[in-house]
């Protein structure tokens, strides 16, 4: 940014050349190549994965730090602000479609492939010839009873507590937002810490639940289509909660460093959008994965 000594809010901010994106790709590819080697038992060791991960976090820190400093330095006019709004909205839309693939798989299994395996309609021969005796049911690990009998996690148990935790975190985040707009910074930071704490509590219960599923219920990824959809949906959701909590934490720390103004704080709002999105996905999960 040496070239951009003075901010000019009338002109769209065009950043100086940057090596971070290239370096980020190198880090990512190191991780993916390492994981590929691991999956194919090539014994190349974990070094590329760890080195790539460390490099990735370092780059992301430096890159986002630069963006935060540009923002605080007044380089971003109203138009740049709108760019971030549009971009975040489109990004969340892409995330919705990503989850849509897994929700679609769950729908397809429950309403199409399992009834067909059970011989519904014109698929009677499938049932009689290939999977005799299989009856459509849910939950199921399929006609071959993959990985043996298992139990499921009841909806109105820990998952319901988790629902309440996430919904509450949405409220505390909104309270933080209102406090920020009213320029009550201490209240903002406290509500933010409350939100981060609720996110961590949710993650704690999710991990407990996974350990319970694997240890006591014999519910595993290998447990047929139920285990597949259960762990894919809750797993990717959990990763998003982890990322969201990390983002909330960073925003909280930035607030403590004095970043953001009552009238200009899209960094905060973007993370809030993301958190609400993660929240809504959980509601969908709670209903179609745990409850129905």
């Amino acid at each position: 940014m040496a070239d951009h000594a003075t901010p000019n809010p009338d002109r769209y901010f065009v950043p100086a050349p940057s090596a971070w994106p290239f370096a980020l790709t190198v880090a990512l590819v190191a991780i993916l190549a390492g994981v590929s080697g691991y999956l194919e038992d090539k014994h190349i060791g974990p070094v590329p994965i760890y080195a790539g991960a460390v490099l990735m976090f370092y780059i992301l820190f430096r890159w986002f730090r630069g963006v935060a400093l540009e923002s605080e330095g007044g380089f971003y006019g109203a138009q740049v602000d709108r760019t971030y709004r549009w971009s975040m909205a489109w990004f969340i839309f892409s995330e919705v479609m990503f989850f849509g693939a897994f929700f679609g798989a769950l729908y397809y299994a429950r309403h199409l492939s399992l009834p067909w395996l059970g011989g519904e309609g014109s698929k009677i021969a499938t049932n009689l010839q290939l999977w005799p005796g299989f009856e459509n049911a849910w939950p199921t690990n399929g006609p071959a009873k993959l990985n043996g009998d298992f139990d499921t996690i009841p909806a109105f148990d820990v998952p319901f507590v988790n629902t309440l935790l996430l919904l509450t975190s949405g409220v505390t985040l909104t309270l933080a937002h209102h406090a920020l707009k009213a320029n009550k910074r201490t209240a903002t930071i406290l509500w933010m810490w409350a939100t981060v704490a609720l996110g961590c509590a949710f993650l704690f219960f999710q991990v407990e639940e996974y350990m319970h599923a694997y240890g006591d219920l014999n519910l595993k990824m290998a447990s047929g289509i139920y285990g597949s959809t259960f762990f894919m949906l809750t797993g990717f959701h959990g990763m998003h909660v982890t990322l969201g909590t990390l983002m909330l934490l960073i925003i909280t720390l930035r607030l403590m460093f004095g970043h953001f103004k009552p009238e200009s704080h899209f960094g905060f709002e973007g993370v809030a959008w993301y958190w609400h999105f993660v929240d809504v996905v959980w509601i969908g999960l709670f209903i179609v994965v745990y409850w129905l």
Partner: protein
Amino acid sequence: MAHHDHAHDDHAHDEHHGPEKGIMRWIKTTNHKDLGTLYLFFAFTMFFIGGLMSLVIRAELFHPGLQFVDPEFFNQMTTMHALVMIFGGVMPAWVGLANWMVPMMIGCSDLALPRINNWGFWILPFAFAMLLGTLFMEGGAPAGGWTMYPPLVLQTGNAFPFLIFAVHLMGVSSITGAINVAVTILNMRAPGMSLLKMPLFVWTWLITAYLLIAVMPVLAGAVTMLLTDKYFLTSFFTASGGGDPVMFQHIFWFFGHPEVYILILPAFGIVSTIIPTFARKALFGYDSMVYAVASIAFLSFIVWAHHMFTVGMPLAGELFFMFATMLIAVPTGVKVFNWVATMWKGSMTFESPMLFALAFVFLFTIGGFSGLMLAITPVDFQYHDTYFVVAHFHYVLVPGAVFAILAGVYYWIPKWTGRMYSEKWGKIHFWLSAIFINITFFPQHFAGLAGMQRRVPDYAVQFVDWNVWSTIGAFGFFLAQFIFIFNMLACCYGWFGRKQGLPDRVWEGAHGLEWTVPSPAPYHTFEVPPVISDNEVTAAHDSVDALDKHKLS
């Protein structure tokens, strides 16, 4: 011309950076023109590699029986040819053209997110290094077809995780590129450039970007399920666990069908730009063009299972997807009609971009008609997985998408480099391409109708004649492209004594903001938003008022 001066008038703010020197310029660049150039060089490199793979396929099919490669390697070639051409060739070429042209067409200084733009590009060489690297691995490259259907694809050797992660990376690149273009179009238009005044290329790219953001994550989800099925014991696509291999096909084609419009919609935009220029008339039916593209995009989400008519769907599904697919012919017909009507009574000239655009209209329509034939479920039972399908999608992709890319490069290379290409060699390139591409793919219709299976290295002797023609055409087409490469590189590097010094408006019939900046376009354009005159607006110079003004001037 008053609107002309804005590009030159404001160089007072000298603090802005020019390009860096050497290789670091390209690694660190955030400039949309640099990145557009990188994208295009990358795309044409991939076209070359993918083209070599197609020559392996065509050489093997020159004669029945096995002669050059073993069947396993043949399958690797068909799989890799498709992945390289789609994700490495056509898609990056569109992003490259969007990089170069969208900011200059809507009057803004750069794409909305320049650093993300750099990231989106630099993912691609790494992703394709991973993908092409699988050719040298134990078990070879992926060979189950680019559609990656389980359970076959799960038999891939060491290449498998590299395939999956390469697809993930390409997806990240596409999504970031699409978000960037969409946000640029929505947020950075110069004052007065309302949505229905935007050039058609910008419109088609906006809708393409929407499709990309909607479906690339679905592909990511699909290949992630493949990955967990292979390594983490899930059973999404395994019937014994309650899943279904056909489910993959549904999820894949929910991505795959919008994907084919991702490959062709920007081509519509380019043809809609070039034909008015060389017919010296305003585009006929601007609004209907926009609505037609939007309708095609909408319909693309509800036709996916026409790729799976023979898989054993319920009858209601077959009927729904047949009729929904046929509906697409309506907006597509609107577009073809509008292109023809634009030329009606125009004063036409036939420079290279126009020749490619005209060939596009004619040959893409042939591909469209064979698509209609394939849409009819009962006859698709006969056509499915034959060379008729191969002929169909190559007609829409090569004389469709690739011709439009070539047309666009011919059309804008004088603006990019400030040097005019050789018209004589452009025309030779066009005629060789147009003739050889038809020699390559037209006989495949007949071979397919007669029952020749795709993706098989051997065939019955009755198909020999068609395949001999096809192979001759493929080699001819491949060789003809070197004319293009040298013609364009000569513009880039000033070979053969080509001098700069073209007017701003290189084509006298061209309209649009890109023709108000100098040729070659300076490193930074429109740092201050331009004032837009009606003369530069696609839709406005179609209106009666503007036409009257046009006649007076």
